[in-house]
């Protein structure tokens, strides 16, 4: 994959979420949404390291991971619109969706709770000898959750093929992570588990891909888990209604100069700019097609509300 492919995938995630925001404003999305604007290089770079059969677990800020893993765009829109989508039939929506067909174990609305579950996917890979790895993404705030601590130690002692990607966007929900921990980098915590860790520029898909590939290779050869801390910035609020009064003046404007799509554009010559413009137009059309397809999906039949509680 080259830079244009990365750009296309990151633009797809960005455009998806911009369109999602417009749909939310128009009343077509009933619930809360948590956007990953600015963080797109992390799932895009990380998923470059993966094969079919490798499981990905994310958080409620996980639209980028779903899209990078190839989950159907129309299905994602339909699910978030509360329609009877092929993903989760409208039972999960934006913060808890999943797709076994794309090995997407799914998002999770409980901070950190995906890490133990991803550890289980890694256990299956190890015990069945499938050669698969399990990649799990969390935010910086989740590093203070007990479930993450327990799962990391468990994965370490069992030498499981697990890769933890910490998306450090500096904010633990609506509080600065620097007020919530006494370490400079969350990767320092890895020493407590006897695990290797790296800190990378999370706005550079190549840097993310290189670090995650190293961790994935290590996991695949049976050498156990690793941690990759990817430094990034959130361009939007914690959730759709967050006015971000807690962020200092100019911080978001500065972040907009450093975010991954802007970076590629800033370095582009006229020829590349034209190609990026073309990609943007193609992505916009693709997103509109997906929205149209999603709107055609019916709402779930109320008579099915009690279906699927049990097998």
């Amino acid at each position, binding site marked *: 994959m080259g830079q244009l492919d990365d750009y296309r995938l990151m633009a797809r995630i960005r455009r998806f979420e911009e369109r999602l925001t417009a749909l939310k404003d128009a009343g077509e999305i009933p619930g809360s949404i948590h956007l990953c604007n600015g963080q797109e290089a992390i799932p895009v770079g990380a998923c470059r390291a993966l094969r079919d059969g490798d499981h990905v677990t994310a958080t409620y800020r996980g639209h980028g991971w779903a899209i990078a893993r190839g989950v159907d765009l129309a299905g994602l829109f339909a699910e978030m619109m509360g329609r009877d989508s092929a993903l989760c039939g409208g*039972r999960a929506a934006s913060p808890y969706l999943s797709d076994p067909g794309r090995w997407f174990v799914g998002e999770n609305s409980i901070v950190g709770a995906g890490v133990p579950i991803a550890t289980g996917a890694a256990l299956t890979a190890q015990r069945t000898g499938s050669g698969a790895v399990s990649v799990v993404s969390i935010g910086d705030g989740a590093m203070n959750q007990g479930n993450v601590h327990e799962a990391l130690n468990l994965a370490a002692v069992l030498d499981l093929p697990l890769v933890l990607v910490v998306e450090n966007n500096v904010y633990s929900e609506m509080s600065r992570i620097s007020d919530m921990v006494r370490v400079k980098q969350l990767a320092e915590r890895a020493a407590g588990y006897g695990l290797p860790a790296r800190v990378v520029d999370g706005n550079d898909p190549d840097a993310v891909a290189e670090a995650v590939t190293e961790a994935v290779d290590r996991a695949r050869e049976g050498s156990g888990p690793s941690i990759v801390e990817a430094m990034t910035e959130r361009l939007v609020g914690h959730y759709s209604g967050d006015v971000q009064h807690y962020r200092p003046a100019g911080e978001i404007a500065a972040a907009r100069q450093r975010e991954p799509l802007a970076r590629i554009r800033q370095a582009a010559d006229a020829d590349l700019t034209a190609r990026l413009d073309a990609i943007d137009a193609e992505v916009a059309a693709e997103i509109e097609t997906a929205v149209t397809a999603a709107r055609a999906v019916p709402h779930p039949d109320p008579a099915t509300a009690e279906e699927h509680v049990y097998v």
Partner: protein
Amino acid sequence: MSESLRYIQAVNAALTWALDSRTDTIYFGEDVALPGGPFGATKGLHKRFGSERIFDTPVSETGFLGMALGAAMTGLRPIAEIMYADFSFVAMDQIVNQIATIHYSSAGRWKAPLVIRMQQGYSPGACAQHSHSPEAYFAHTPGLRVALPATPDDAYQMLRTAVVSDDPVVVAEARMLYPTRGPVRTDAPVEPVGGARVVRPGTDVTVVAWSRMVSAALDAAGTLAEEGIDVEVVDLRWLNPLDFDTVAASVARTGRLVVAHEANLTGGFGAEIAARAATECFTDLRAPIARVAAPDVPMPAAPALQAVVVPEAATVADAVRRTVRA
């Protein structure tokens, strides 16, 4: 074929069957492999099946229950052991928000075929944090099957049922029953989930019980028979799926209902049985429904205090007498 086994031996036999007959089954928890479990439930399993199939975990209930879920979603059938039911509370997120929910929230696309095996209830001198009977929390949670075997045979049959179930199952045994001995049908076919059972027919009053309180109810029935009161005892066995038909049919015969559990009264599963009976058995009832339960106190450790808190056969007998005379 029937063997005479202690309850804890029946658990061991069921786990041996599971690991032997299903290669996708794995077993983990605290001190279960090399130590063989604090009560001997997994004695000999590590030697026979090895670390690939049964292994010890760190003291991390949230971590390893979440791991059980992820493993179940991706192709294994894990059995995770919670040493004392009280310890499940530190992992309630994984049980309630994750394990119970994923099948529904994915419209059935992910399955979570796992077993959470635990033991519950008081024992002499055990403090409040080693004495809970938390079955009502699990029965309240949609998505979980809840099994409470009361006999060695059910310890064997219901655990095997749980292992082959495609839904997550909480199997809550009773530590106080572990030394009890009884016939176990080791060659019986695996039963489907659910099903209450009339374990003593009677005509005057129905006592619905589960877990340790089944034997207390049977003891009470023996005492009351000498007083001319004929008690029918229903072992509920599974709180989910709930076989209320068996309860309703019994109440239709006897016209009176007593529900007995060791868990404390308020919000206990007895309240659910009472509410269902008040709705579905209204015209059959000739007396108010009675509930036998521990009072609403954390379990005290001292035997002198436990003696007035823990419901026993005499507590059940008193409730039955009041109901019959009402």
